[in-house]
């Protein structure tokens, strides 16, 4: 019988959390992010007011989504661009592959876009023998490794420079002395530059789509997104319907907030607005401009008023960075396009509650994610909502129901409680003495397996309470 997603998660989590090299790379990466994020927040006079403002703007956008999408569409069309509405991944891929086929595309350059990962666009293009180049450095690295992105903002965060140098040596045939990051970047630049100038199609995502101006906004530091959208003769934008902002001026707060939460920068180096193909009198730019608005489960999430705010997410990655579970098990363990807290909340809506309900339990419910989210999504409560919805939809297992019944009657009957807790303490003491802590017969195995056994108190809280908690 093949492994379920939940079993796969547990297996990979066990391996990754014991991988000390991985842990060290992630710790260093996140420590440097934490410091930059903190410095970045101090640039605001009132960071919390910025978060509140973003929340209000997104709430307005999402609660008038039809109006704003239509406004956006009208403005793009007025500049000669095309807007296609895709109900699901298959329709979106079909539209893009049809364009590629019609215009004889052989090479595509892509800038980072999580929606294209979600709909598996690259494999669809590759089936037509089209060469697809990921041009964001992190994406390029994971593409060479044949891996999905590890993180929604920093896709190759799990690799150190030595591993990247080895990869480049193996795949690009060049050895960089001393694994120097500057030279590694230069090598990637040289390789990708040829692709930018030979590709017929550039594909990008959009960080935002701005209704009143009919433009998409893309934030990139490397400039790969700029080249993808400037040089090839076709530009295709693939984005989720929820990325809308009502007004251009909203970016005055969203750009700094996204950059601060994503990398700690004051603003991303290239904050770009694009609203159509090359216009009359413009020196360059693509002849064709297409925007694919992807639903793929988002309108279903919109209909759930309790969880609608999940659509406010601006994919900054802050909740991943702060999550103690993500830090331990790493991005690939989730087996999903979106990882970490937002992935655990969102994936059951996009890809099915039954298959991905286990992700709601991959959380200590500490609330760190909610406290950093720049659009104030109540992430950890949404994990609870998903747990509840999963139980309501599938019903609970017999064993689980029996355990809860037992727990309930124990809690309602003090005598049973006293008896069971004292028996439990004795049993554990005996097991520990026999050296069986963490073994298969230890009821505390989940904890004791990898740690020194939980110390057992000499007497119960109850008896200490009776004695007035003295001593």
């Amino acid at each position, binding site marked *: 019988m093949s492994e379920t997603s939940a079993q796969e998660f547990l297996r990979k989590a066990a391996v990754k959390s014991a991988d000390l090299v991985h842990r060290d790379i992630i710790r260093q990466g996140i420590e440097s992010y934490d410091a930059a994020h903190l410095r970045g927040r101090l640039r605001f006079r009132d960071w919390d007011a910025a978060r509140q403002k973003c929340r209000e703007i997104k709430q307005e956008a999402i609660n008038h989504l*039809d109006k704003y999408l239509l406004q956006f569409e009208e403005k793009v069309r*007025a500049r000669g661009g095309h807007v296609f*509405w895709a109900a699901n991944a298959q329709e979106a891929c079909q539209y893009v592959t049809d364009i590629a086929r019609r215009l004889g595309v052989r090479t595509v350059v892509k800038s980072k876009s999580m929606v294209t990962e979600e709909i598996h666009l690259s494999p669809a293009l590759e089936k037509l023998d089209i060469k697809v180049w990921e041009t964001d450095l992190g994406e390029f690295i994971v593409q060479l490794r044949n891996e999905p992105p590890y993180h929604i903002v920093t896709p190759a965060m799990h690799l150190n420079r030595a591993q990247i140098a080895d990869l480049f040596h193996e795949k690009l045939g060049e050895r960089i002395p001393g694994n120097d990051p500057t030279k590694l970047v230069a090598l990637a630049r040289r390789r990708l530059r040829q692709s930018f100038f030979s590709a017929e199609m550039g594909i990008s995502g959009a960080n935002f789509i701005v209704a009143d101006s009919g433009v998409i906004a893309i934030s990139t530091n490397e400039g790969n997104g*700029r080249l993808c959208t*400037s040089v090839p003769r076709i530009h295709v934008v693939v984005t989720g319907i929820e990325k809308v902002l009502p007004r251009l*001026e909203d970016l005055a707060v969203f750009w700094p907030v996204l950059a601060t939460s994503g990398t700690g920068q*004051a*603003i991303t180096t290239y904050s770009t607005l694009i609203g159509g193909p090359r216009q009359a009198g*413009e020196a360059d*730019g693509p002849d064709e401009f297409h925007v694919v608005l992807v639903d793929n489960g988002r309108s279903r999430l919109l209909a759930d008023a309790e969880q609608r705010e999940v659509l406010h997410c601006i994919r900054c990655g802050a909740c991943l960075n702060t999550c103690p579970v993500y830090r331990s098990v790493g991005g690939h363990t989730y087996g999903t396009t979106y990882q970490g807290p937002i992935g655990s909340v969102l994936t059951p809506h996009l890809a099915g509650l039954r298959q991905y309900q286990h992700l709601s339990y991959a959380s200590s419910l500490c609330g760190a994610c909610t406290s950093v989210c720049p659009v104030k999504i109540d992430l950890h409560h949404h994990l609870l909502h998903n747990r509840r919805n999963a139980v309501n939809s599938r019903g609970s297992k017999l064993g689980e129901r029996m355990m809860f019944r037992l727990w309930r009657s124990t809690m309602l009957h003090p005598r049973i409680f006293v008896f069971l807790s004292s028996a439990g303490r004795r049993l554990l003491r005996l097991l520990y003495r026999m050296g069986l802590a963490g073994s298969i017969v230890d009821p505390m195995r989940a904890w004791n397996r990898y740690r020194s056994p939980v110390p057992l108190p000499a007497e119960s809280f109850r008896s200490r309470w009776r004695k007035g908690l003295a001593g």
Partner: protein
Amino acid sequence: MPVENPSRELILERIRAGLRTPVAPHPGPRSDAVIFEPIRNPLERFQQESTANLMECTLTSDLAGAALQLGKILDSLPAGEIFLQDDPSLRRLIELTKTQRPLRWSSEGAPREASEATVSLAEALIAQTGSVLVTAECGGRGASIVAPCHIVYAHAAQLVPDLETALGNLFRSGKLVRNSFACVISGSSRTADIEKILVQGAHGPRRLAVILQTGR
């Protein structure tokens, strides 16, 4: 070529049906608080922020000073073609530098891949983030991304205090209706994808130089 799009109505209908259930207003405070520190001295702030962004910003008092500065930057670059936004002020400026390099103007098309530098104007300079705002009118899209060095010639009068003002002006001017592209550029191209170590010159310019003329 119009494409059939049956899902358009379907998605809009789903959105409208979903929105029939309203959400409860968020209990948080309304965001009337001041989010960013007000900017008292835009020029000083621009200089600070652009330095932090690893840009070069040189102040000059007049056109002759700007030409001198441009000449110096061009002299520091390897031999090769320079791409320029076709604008009378830049034609005058480049003439004053007496450069012998091959020139290509934006009226002739996109910058060539092998251009050594590009020279353009800006729509505005943004003090808050030390940024340069360009649109397609500033020599096109490639003018600020293709060559390893991008030189911007701007006037102090183009300084605006913050992003909100810059974006508000951009919207009201109607420039985005006419232009298919605009970009707020805050430094040279960079990446930190390898162990979070900052490396300049990822895919775009390694060098972004602003020649900021304070007088006429």
